[in-house]
């Protein structure tokens, strides 16, 4: 006998994501899921963001890593609270992992919460976790063809940060073509061109964050 189901396989995850979202919104936390390949500069961007904004806002970072606590340690050295989630070998953070981390945080006191996802352009895009915004980084050395390889990621994020812009003169990364591709797939996405090393574009990025914080 055939039984019709027609249900999204991610249903159970999405229900928990909705719960996370409610909890974050009730506590007026601006939550941001930060995704990118390993080595694209997620932690460096967060460290620079913390330096720029920590006097104005209470910031907290959840670091999801397959194994080490290195990234969380770097955040803590900037004087900001960081929580480490060990994903136990999983390639992504799911809603359940974020939910468990949220339970241990003083959400009422937090203005800005980053979830630094596992370095990966594929799987994190498939799991809703309940953050208000999701952003991704694409570093110049990775190449301008990546939107075609990872369309799910590029077409769903709220912002794309092109990182390591100081490498641009050394590479054949076609910035114009890249921007045209991303805007074509995802017209709502903001694009920021940033180098943490030179400081290029950092103010545009933090300005966007401050504007989002006002709307919370």
């Amino acid at each position, binding site marked *: *006998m*055939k*039984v*019709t*189901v*027609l*249900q*999204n*396989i*991610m*249903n*159970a*995850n999405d229900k928990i994501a909705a719960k996370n979202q409610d909890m974050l919104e009730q506590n007026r936390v601006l939550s941001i899921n930060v995704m990118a390949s390993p080595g694209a500069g997620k932690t460096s961007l967060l460290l620079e963001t913390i330096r720029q904004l920590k006097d104005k806002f209470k910031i907290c970072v959840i670091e999801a890593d397959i194994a080490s606590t290195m990234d969380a340690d770097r955040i803590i050295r900037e004087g900001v609270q960081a929580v480490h989630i060990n994903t136990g070998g*999983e*390639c*992504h953070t*799911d809603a359940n992992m974020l939910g468990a981390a949220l339970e241990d945080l003083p959400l009422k006191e937090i203005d800005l919460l980053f979830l630094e996802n596992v370095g990966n352009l*594929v*799987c994190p895009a*498939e799991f809703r976790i309940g953050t208000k915004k999701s952003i991704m980084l694409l570093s110049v050395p990775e190449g301008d*063809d990546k939107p*075609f390889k990872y*369309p*799910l990621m590029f*077409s769903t994020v709220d912002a794309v940060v092109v990182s390591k812009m100081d490498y641009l003169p050394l590479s054949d990364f076609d910035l114009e073509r890249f921007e*045209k*591709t991303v*805007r*074509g*797939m995802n*017209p709502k996405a903001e694009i920021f061109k940033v180098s943490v090393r030179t400081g290029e574009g950092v103010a545009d990025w933090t300005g966007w964050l401050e504007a989002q914080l006002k709307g919370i």
Partner: protein
Amino acid sequence: MHELSVTQGILDMAIEKALEAGSKRVTDIYLVIGDASSIIDDCVQFSFDFVSKDTIAEGARLHFQRIPLQVRCRDCGDVFRPQKESWECPQCKKWEVDIIKGKEFYMESIEVD
């Protein structure tokens, strides 16, 4: 590569639906998965055989219907399959497109005894 966690969700859903229908055995599970998903069919079946042991879905066969990526031009409305390194509309040459197929990830039906 997260077939194991996804497979547990497939198993739970199939068992729930079978019990709701008053049946005691799931023999087949029909899944619809878009090509934008990273899921690999063989890995899911492999994980499924492992997690379904000693359940009413043990030994069930998984069937995958794959949906290719398809986009629609926001300018002229043409629907097409994008090329590997270009999503340019073949009709009007614009680059603005919406993904309309290829993101599917659902259970279509199950076959039960």
